[in-house]
């Protein structure tokens, strides 16, 4: 999907946390947001997705990950301990509800429910891009 619609400039992709597995998930989301403060959001995102043994889902594991990424550990630790992004995570949860999300993963394309298959999503993105272009042209005269 990244290759077909993001790299081609048709779409941008946004990941939002939708926490359904409780405290451990919430902690991982918080750690990712804290890493994002230091420019390592995607590094943490990928590390968590690939962490089959869930070693980084603990405080110690997240700090180790932060060390591996060369982050400022004092700043990172304070961020996770103080739950500095609690409000941001809450807003994502609220927006998910507003979007009718009940499970994961759930995709939305310009706010509309996405097709189930990759080819369907690509078609949908192309159609949405064409619609946006048409609307822009008609607005321009």
């Amino acid at each position, binding site marked *: 999907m*990244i*290759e077909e*619609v*993001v*790299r081609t*400039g*048709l*779409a*941008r*992709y*946004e*990941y*939002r*946390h*939708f*926490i359904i*597995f*409780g*405290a*451990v*998930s*919430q*902690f*991982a*989301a918080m750690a*990712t947001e804290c890493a*994002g*403060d*230091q*420019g390592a*959001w*995607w590094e943490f*995102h*990928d590390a968590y*997705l690939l962490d089959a043994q*869930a070693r980084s889902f*603990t*405080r*110690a594991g*997240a700090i180790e990950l932060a060390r591996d990424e060369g982050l400022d550990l004092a700043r990172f630790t304070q961020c996770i301990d103080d739950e500095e992004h609690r409000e*941001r995570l*809450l*807003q994502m*949860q*609220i*927006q998910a*509800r*507003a*979007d009718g999300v009940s499970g*994961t*993963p*759930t*995709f*939305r*394309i*310009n706010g509309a429910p996405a097709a189930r298959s990759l080819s369907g*999503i690509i078609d949908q993105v192309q159609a*949405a*891009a064409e619609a946006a*272009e048409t609307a822009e042209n008609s607005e321009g005269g």
Partner: protein
Amino acid sequence: MRRALWPVLLIAGLGLLLSACGSGGAPDDGDDDASTGTVRSERAEREASIMQQQGQVEVSDAAEGDGVIDFGHREGLPYTRNVVGDPDAPVLIVEYSDFQ
């Protein structure tokens, strides 16, 4: 008049005291305390519900840590925190997900 205000002030004071007890406490050590997580989760649910009722539904895009991704299958793509791709792209794909 001043006497009439006493019950109001007393109730307000008790409310503040209860609120402080409910939201205070030492920071969690983050080591996967499931029971604490449940309490937090329930509190977050209540707050989400209240905010939703108040129409405060909005996700802000923090513009921290933007640049170009230099690893993996997104290499070379611009990003702003949790958003990747051309910021002027006409279509927005949102994925709601959980790491577990």
